[in-house]
């Protein structure tokens, strides 16, 4: 039994050190991307198109719906729709929390899973070895553009989600309370602080890095059997969600400790 535990511990340490080495290599190669951009530029553009542009419709629908639901549920509480407190609640809930998290979950489901599946299948069909054979590291060619593309798309989609979430909330609030939408928008803007935008951008960028790095890692960790691909994809999705939530907690803690959460 002791031998089995020892073996498992050794295997876990080996896996963790491999994963850490992989991530270090991925991030190091990201800094070298500019010098090799001609080779990876098309992959980057395609990634932004798939992760960012093609997700706009689902993000707008979800954000509008959730923004509206917040107001419908909140309206059950007395005085919820009265005063500036409503706008601060909306900004904190939507901009700082729901926007980045909702976008992250959509990107994990759409792009994270697609990245792991695609890269895993490329391992199985020896396409990764083909990259190595022509002197191109597949992590540089395939991993780096996905890391940059997903992170950039995540930031832009989160901003987009915030706009639609707030718009959904204010539209419903306007209908229920009778206050004009333009007045509500003016009140909302007057309650916005720079820290809200910084927190939202920082969170979404970090979530983007986490999702891309995790998906790429699991895609490359397929060993050669096609049956491994769905297994690794499921693990990639689960791990991305867990890591995003942990990162969210850490960022909230940091903003609370810095006193920025009450602004």
């Amino acid at each position, binding site marked *: 039994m002791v031998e089995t535990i020892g073996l498992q511990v050794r295997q876990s340490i080996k896996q963790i050190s491999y994963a850490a080495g992989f991530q270090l290599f991925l991030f190091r190669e990201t800094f070298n991307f500019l010098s*090799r951009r*001609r*080779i990876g530029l098309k992959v980057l553009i395609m990634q932004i198109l798939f992760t960012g542009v093609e997700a706009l419709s689902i993000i707008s629908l979800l954000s509008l719906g959730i923004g509206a639901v917040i107001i419908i549920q909140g309206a059950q509480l007395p005085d919820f729709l009265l005063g500036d407190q409503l706008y601060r609640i909306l900004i904190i809930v939507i901009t700082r929390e729901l926007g980045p998290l909702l976008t992250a979950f959509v990107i994990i489901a759409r792009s994270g899973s697609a990245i792991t599946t*695609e890269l895993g299948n*490329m391992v199985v*069909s*020896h*396409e990764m*070895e*083909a*990259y*190595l*054979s*022509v*002197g*191109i590291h597949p992590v540089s060619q395939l991993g780096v553009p996905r890391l940059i593309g997903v992170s950039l798309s995540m930031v832009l989609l989160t901003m987009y989600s915030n706009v639609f979430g707030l718009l959904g909330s204010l539209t419903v609030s306007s209908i229920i309370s009778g206050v004009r939408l333009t007045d509500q928008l003016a009140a909302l803007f007057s309650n916005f602080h720079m820290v809200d935008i910084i927190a939202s951008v920082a969170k979404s960028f970090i979530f983007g890095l986490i999702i891309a790095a995790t998906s790429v890692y699991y895609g490359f960790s397929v060993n050669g059997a096609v049956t491994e691909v769905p297994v690794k994809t499921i693990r990639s999705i689960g791990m991305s969600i867990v890591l995003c939530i942990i990162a969210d907690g850490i960022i909230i803690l940091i903003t609370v400790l810095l006193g920025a959460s009450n602004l």
Partner: protein
Amino acid sequence: MNKTIPPIVFNGVSLYFNNRAALDDVTLEFQRGKTTAVIGSSGSGKSLVLKCAAGLIFPDEGIIAYEGTSIASMKETLYQQMQARTGFHFQDAALWANKSLGENLSLPLLSTNPDYTDSDLKNKVDESFASVGLKLDPSLRPASISMGQRKLVSFLRATITRPEILFLDDPLAFMDREGSRQLIAEIEQFRDDGATIIIATHDSTLIKTMADQIMVLTHGRLSASGSYQDVLPLLRELV
């Protein structure tokens, strides 16, 4: 480059999959400017020898040296230089499915020389297709052509940079007679130009007409090596 030493040397190379030795203490040398056929029954480790020699897979034990330097401990720049001077033709073509045929051929060129213009690349791709009589639209994806055509394009990808060492993993698999004829003519051209060629194959004609040296693998071990006449008795059993 020191031309007196063999370009690739295996020293006690072993490779394990699930604790089973896929390559078992293999020691061999590939001679410069010669054509070596690696033969053996299915699963004997032929493809693995080629992939290890090309630096695509690293062994669990032993050393593989390229021009006297261990591939496993090579610096990244040297490894890239090595890959630029070698070409690998995969058994299953392994074309990049999400790239066009033209892009499949352009990428190795860009890897060796990023200054190629789009028009240079187009000309090189057209010349390459013409050299094997392929009349294909370079904008097609690999999925829209036959397996035999994919194998030819894969060969072109491996050779478009005119490598000094060419690895051919079962080059005639999935090929029809005409395609095989074209491919053999291209390989002969490379041999005549002085390239070092390493072929994993079952094809007796290819072995007889092309190989200067034959290496026989049995269950991951090098069981015999020598000229065609030396290994003829074994060949009758294997191919």
